């Protein structure tokens, strides 16, 4: 993480001094396909009623496989380690799909979460679903590692419904995009 931050800062500042904004956009686009941390999202934990929220009393949604344990409607599900928003599992989508009629944001923030079942660290992409109003169900927000807006790649207050037809935010997914490897 520290190396990544230093890298991004150096690069961002280099872009700031030398190139165009499109350059920064290209950099961000590239970063998405890398690893590490591009957290994001729009909702303050303050409005989560207790703990990290989720939705107490809601029937559990599970994967059906022991290798992917946990209730996907609850904030303590292992993939949600860096999420901030309404869980798409409660909004008509699933942990890895957007609700019908929404559009999945191509620009995402990424977390690295450890699966308690197999002990592997997975890179999780928190793609937002956009184009319908706030889902309003299963708000989940954690701020560990969250930093001020001066560092957008690690600030979860931004609305990342960017690059979509509509910037109206509906909910967030948590998609496995690979197994994280140890930084060299």
């Amino acid at each position, binding site marked *: 993480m*520290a190396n990544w*931050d230093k890298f*991004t*800062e*150096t690069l*961002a*500042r280099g*872009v*700031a001094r030398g*190139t*165009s*904004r*499109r*350059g*920064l*956009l290209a950099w*961000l686009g590239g970063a998405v396909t890398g690893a590490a941390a591009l957290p994001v999202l*729009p*909702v*303050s*934990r*303050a*409005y989560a009623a207790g703990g990290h929220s989720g939705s107490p009393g809601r029937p559990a949604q599970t994967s059906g496989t022991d290798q992917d344990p946990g209730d996907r409607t609850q904030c303590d599900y292992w993939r949600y380690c860096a999420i901030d928003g309404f869980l798409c599992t409660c909004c008509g989508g699933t942990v890895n799909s957007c609700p019908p009629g929404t559009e999945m944001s191509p*620009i995402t923030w990424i977390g690295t979460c450890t699966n308690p079942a197999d002990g592997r660290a997975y890179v999780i992409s928190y793609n937002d679903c956009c*184009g*319908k*109003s*706030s889902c*309003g169900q299963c*708000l989940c*927000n*954690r*701020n*560990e*590692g*969250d*930093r*001020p*807006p*001066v*560092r*957008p790649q690690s600030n979860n*207050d*931004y*609305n*990342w*419904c*960017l690059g979509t*037809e*509509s*910037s*109206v*935010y509906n909910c967030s997914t948590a998609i496995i995009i690979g197994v994280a490897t140890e930084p060299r």
Partner: protein
Amino acid sequence: MKRVSFSVALAASVALALPVVAQTVAPKAFPKPLAEEPIPNVATLPEKYPASWIMVHDFNFMALADGRGSVVDVADPVNPLKGMVSIAQFGNVLLPKTKAEIYTAETYYTRLSRGERTDVITIWDKANLKPKGEIILPGGKRHQQVTYKNAFQFTNGEKWALISNFTPAQSVSVVDLEGRKVLSEIDLPGCSLIYPTGQRGFTTFCADSTFSTLQLGEDGKLVSTTTSKPILDIDKQPLFGMPAMVGQTAWFVSYYGVLKGFDLSGPVAKPLGKDFNVGTAEGASPEWRPGGWQVLASDAAGKLYVLMNPSGREGSHKDGGTEVWVFAPASKARTARIPVRGPVISIEVTREDKPRLVAARVDAVVDVYDAASGTFQHSLGNTVAFNPQTLSVID
């Protein structure tokens, strides 16, 4: 004519209902009926609001496209909500001292959540809360974020507004509020938020721990950029994004409680070099840290109010607080600890002769305290906003 017919029909239906009520309630002998009341009848507000009125930005998380701003009299627990303006879709609100206007920066879609996007600064009349003008912001790039006041600020004696863009490329648009037009757009890759500096400029914080002060020409175009040494330690002392202003000094607080001042009166922002820490106190587990959204406020005398969370740890900085600590920056002394009913996420202090501390809670209840003594005065209840995210004095 249709309207008249409808009114008559409505009146008739009410008249028919009356005898039923009369049968169950014993009538008293009042010699005269109640007076007829005029229709239509719409309330208005004074152009200059009383000092007990503030703007509450209702972010309305459950319907972000329908964010609002509530004009609230914190001295009136009976009828605190005086009126509303819209602040649609991750918007911002800006309150001038020099004009009887309110500015909101908003985003609309023609079909609410889809269709053609319009980013706009709406100019509201303070007395009737009607839109009196607007400035379209081109390019569909207005910064959308849980609201930081410093994404939308004044410069040039409130003649201009500065507004952040995020696509995620970062820039600032300079807007002539009087001429109703966008003057320029200044690229700011790697830097975010706006702290007005000098007569016609602003300072912005950058991801490499520097800050830059940008000065603008009379045409709104960039004239100079001065970049500091890397003194903002984002990893070890990350600063909450919204400062409290004491004159033209911006006071920030870090996640860990360091108070840091910047003099923004001149052509270049200058750190005061008088940092101090909020200190410690009993009653915390594991420790007191600032926590909430708008965690810092100032009063007219220059004291600073910091919202404190007794459960401070990594990731607790938005959880809200249960005490407000008061500091005199000149002496760096803590002068009071005010317990608040909480958790509270945002605080503000009015500019009344006897200032009030206003505390917006996680459950959307807004409570009011005497700022000098810390005594609880009254609660406005859950009556002014779904999600009171920021609170702003209206001068």
